[in-house]
């Protein structure tokens, strides 16, 4: 369980995070979405006690992170996979981490196995590819078998296999009842991974919703195909729907749902070839929500 309440972080005159509040519940993957510079990383760094909040609070399991005695047993985090000492061997990188929280060496071997790095345990981290570093960072997050996990942009730089592996891993962790918060600036990725979405822009909350709700909220009416469009238009208009003619003979109906349309058409004996709700892709919804909140926008688009 993660709770962020009225969190604000200022750097000089700029607010990186501005009165942000949201909750992340156990058993779900929550996507933390926003354009670059929206304050995602800053929020995560405050959650982990790396940066101090200007005001407000960020709680993990009801308390402040700094008060945890052995933090790795409660919270695992992957912030920056490249933030490792290149001269150290993979096993030793996890080794000192384990030692810092009283975790045994056997667990180190276990997590290396789980992330598929068992064969590279004796290799120096400096020679690792970005994908291997991401895996090592995830191994570090899993080391203490924590109930809360934070991943900052975990799929950045990964190949399709790696992306799918991370997606399945996160779904698996949530299914085990853990709280999983994953930041990303890619809606398309979160659409496949997350149950809930916390969308931020310029440090402020834009939406706190489920993936389904978001899709529904950006619904664009119902698409209907029929061999007798003119007749159907009349029927549906009479029933209170507003009907638009699409190019290609399809109709877009607003104000009536799929069931209404089906019943009215059946009552008048009008055959239907297709009836389905139209929704904007989540990518479009996200772009619409975050429009104007990107920190650096191209002057001409």
């Amino acid at each position, binding site marked *: 369980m993660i709770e962020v309440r009225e969190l604000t972080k200022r750097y000089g005159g700029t607010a990186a995070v501005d009165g942000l509040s949201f909750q992340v519940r156990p058993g779900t993957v929550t996507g933390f979405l926003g354009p670059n510079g929206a304050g995602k990383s800053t929020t995560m760094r405050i959650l*982990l006690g790396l940066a101090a909040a200007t005001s407000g609070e960020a709680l993990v399991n009801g308390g402040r992170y700094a008060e945890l005695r052995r933090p790795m047993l409660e919270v695992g985090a992957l912030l920056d996979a490249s933030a490792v000492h290149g*001269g150290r061997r993979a096993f030793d990188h996890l080794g000192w981490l384990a030692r*810092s929280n009283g975790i045994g060496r056997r667990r180190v071997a276990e997590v290396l196995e789980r992330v598929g790095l068992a064969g590279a345990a004796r290799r120096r981290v400096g020679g690792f590819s970005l994908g291997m570093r991401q895996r090592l960072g995830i191994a570090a997050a899993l080391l203490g078998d924590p109930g809360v996990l934070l991943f900052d942009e975990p799929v950045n730089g990964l190949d399709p296999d790696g992306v799918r592996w991370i997606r399945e891993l996160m779904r698996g962790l949530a299914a085990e009842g853990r709280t999983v918060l994953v930041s990303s600036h890619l809606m398309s990725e979160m659409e496949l991974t997350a149950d809930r979405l916390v969308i931020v822009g310029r440090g402020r909350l834009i939406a706190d919703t489920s993936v389904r709700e978001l899709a529904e909220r950006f619904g664009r009416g119902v698409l209907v195909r029929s061999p007798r469009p003119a007749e159907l238009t009349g029927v549906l208009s009479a029933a209170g729907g507003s009907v638009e003619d699409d190019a290609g003979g399809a109709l877009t109906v607003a104000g009536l749902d799929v069931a209404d349309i089906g019943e009215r058409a059946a009552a008048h004996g009008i055959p239907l070839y297709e009836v389905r709700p139209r929704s904007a892709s989540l990518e479009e919804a996200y772009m619409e929500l975050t429009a104007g909140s990107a920190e650096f926008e191209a002057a001409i688009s």
Partner: protein
Amino acid sequence: MTDAIAAEWYKLRTACSTAWILAVVAAFVVLSALSSWYLAHYWDGLSPRRREEFDAPSADQPLSVALPVCAVVLGALTVTSEYATGMIGTSVAVLPRRRLYAAKALVAAGVMLTAAAAGTAVAVLAGRAIVGGRPVPVLGAPLADGVPHLLLTGPVAAAFTLIAFGLGAVLRSTAATITTMVAQMVVLPTLTGLLPSPYGERIWSALPEGLAEQIAAPPGVSAGPGVLSAPVAAAVLLVYVAVALGAGRLSFLRRDA
């Protein structure tokens, strides 16, 4: 605290830089032995009259020149290398800052103290073994004469490690920390020679490098212009350590990682 110390020790012993620093210390121990061997042979070739005037340095003299530099690099890297890689974020997230800071200081100082004391002891004993029965001054002098130097070399090196460590925690940059420390150890003492007496000597005496010599100069090293007694010099060096550690701690605890 045990966890923090064990983790920092694990980190330090698996860092390549530590191995390099210890290798440099070892190399200077070997160099010191070579220097003793050379002096012994030089002695053999001297006429009795020149032997009376002969003034040999302590057996560990080459090592004692290298130790402060090794101490400073170790102390600085202990903290600045983590800022350079960004690993400081992970360290601060897994350990409370107070404990992390204390553990880092303790481990770095402990390693340097041990390396300096062991290296010096080996260099001095090797020197005596090499010189054998020859009555070379200093090298062949009773071991008891060199005891204060032997005992204090470790703590003085540890003090340099801690000063660099504290400064590193403030500056968060390897280059800035090591440059500042080396400038203060090598350049400033030389510059004091340009100042009129007695100010030049006084300032020289109060700089860490001067303090080290006033606390535990190797026997036989020609005395510098120091004006402080050993205990006073030790107290001043401790003030340097306390100020550097205090400033570093404040920065480490207060500023965002």
